[in-house]
């Protein structure tokens, strides 16, 4: 599998609405290398080889959508980036630093990587507002008043400020997932990981979550999104990565990928999901 080059990415960039030249330039200024880099990553679950020699580089400000059939290792890939899954071999580098082992430095790294889960995972015993402020107060040591103010503006942005004092169980799935996005953003992350963020939602709630994600992509956030939402992949991604059987089979800009998939696996996958 050839590692994706930053040069290759720029072609795709032009096709995406909302990502300006200024974003790209600002992104390039912080550090020359990619923000997230995986090299020869392997992972087994027992006998199952879920990640096979995965190489992937994600540039600053880039939106990468990972698609593929169930069990292809997409979620594992996503979770490995902030070490919720450990890997057996290979290297993962975030912002120039190899992922540390369990401990305080790993916690620091995780604070810089926002994560949104399929099942929201909002803290059930805390209100929505507390869910959003907890990280900034306890991890970033922000003043509670400041954290609250910023949390409210984030909740405003994702459209659920009026729900701030409710408990997660009192909200709809779509609202919970938007709260979870606000919670992740409150940490001012350098990158956001989305692990099938809309798969547990009723169909009518998928749109409200994707809208928030699309807006985020437009603002230049670095995003790695595992999803089955082809519409989102088409209009928000800079690059689509297709995974099957633990391997990165194919990657290309979204237009190129959906119009002319090269591999048989991708053709087969697309024919199955796009016929309905």
């Amino acid at each position, binding site marked *: 599998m050839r590692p994706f080059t930053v040069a290759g990415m720029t072609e795709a960039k032009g096709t995406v609405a909302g990502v300006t030249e200024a974003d790209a330039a600002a992104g390039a200024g912080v550090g020359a290398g990619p923000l997230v880099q995986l090299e020869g990553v392997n992972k087994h679950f027992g006998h199952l080889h879920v990640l096979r020699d995965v190489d992937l580089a994600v540039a600053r400000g880039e939106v990468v959508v990972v698609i593929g059939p169930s069990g292809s290792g997409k979620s594992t890939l996503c979770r490995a980036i902030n070490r919720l899954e450990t890997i057996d071999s290979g290297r993962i580098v975030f912002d120039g630093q190899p992922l540390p082992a369990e401990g305080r430095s790993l916690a620091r790294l995780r604070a810089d990587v926002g994560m949104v889960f399929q099942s929201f995972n909002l803290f059930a015993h805390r209100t929505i507002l507390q869910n959003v402020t907890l990280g900034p107060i306890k*991890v970033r040591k922000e003043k509670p008043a400041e954290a609250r103010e910023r949390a409210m503006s984030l909740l405003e942005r994702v459209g659920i400020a009026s729900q701030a004092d409710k408990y997660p169980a009192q909200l709809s799935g779509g609202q919970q997932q938007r709260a979870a996005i606000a919670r992740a953003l409150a*940490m001012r992350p350098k990158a956001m990981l989305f692990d099938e963020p809309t798969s547990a939602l009723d169909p009518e709630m998928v749109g409200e979550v994707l809208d928030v994600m699309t807006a985020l992509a437009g603002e230049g956030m670095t995003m790695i999104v595992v999803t089955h939402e082809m519409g989102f992949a088409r209009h928000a991604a800079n690059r689509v990565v297709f995974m099957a059987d633990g391997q990165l089979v194919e990657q290309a800009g979204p237009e190129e990928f959906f119009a002319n998939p090269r591999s048989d696996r991708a053709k087969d996958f697309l024919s199955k999901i796009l016929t309905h």
Partner: protein
Amino acid sequence: MGDFFGVLTNGNNGRVFLDGFTNTVELFVIAALCSLTLGMLLGAMRVSPVPTLRAFGAGYVNIVRNTPLTLVFAFLIFAVPKLGLNINPFPSACVALTVYTAAFVCEVVRSGINTVPTGQGEAARALGMTFGQVLGLIVLPQAVRSMVPPLMSVLIAMLKNTTIAAGFSVLEAGAIQDYMSERGEPRFGVLLWVTIGFLILILPLVAFQRYLERKWAVAR
């Protein structure tokens, strides 16, 4: 009937009952606080990311839980003084009860932690929380609710286990009957009064359990 109440009122019998149960309560309160603390720590060890701590927690539970309490008492009261450490029976009894009960508390804590969906801990870790924060801020507050009933059972069992200390020179409720039979009081009456004493001690624990369950049922 006069005999029955006489058990409490004859001579200074009331004093013996009072001293016995006071010691029982002291033994219980000290050992409860210590075993809850130690059990909580052991429970945290059993779910920690450090393999050595996990192994220590598991080893402790497996050894202590499988040892009869009488044996733990015998160790502390007969064997430990042979090492040159001279401790009074009362503190030794507190230690014995703590060491033994902590193993059960540990398992209650661990099962409580297991009732909290893994996603809660993952989300907390993904925010950059340390192990202590994940456990203290996210997991344990959600786990205590399901820990309350089994924890109360463990504490009630411990309250009754304090009577074993009677066999090791601690004057507590379990020792009352020996004193009474020396004074020729009827066995039946004495044992019934001791039983009633324990029931009275346990009732507040049950009420406390109800209170906690109701209090924590709301917040979610």
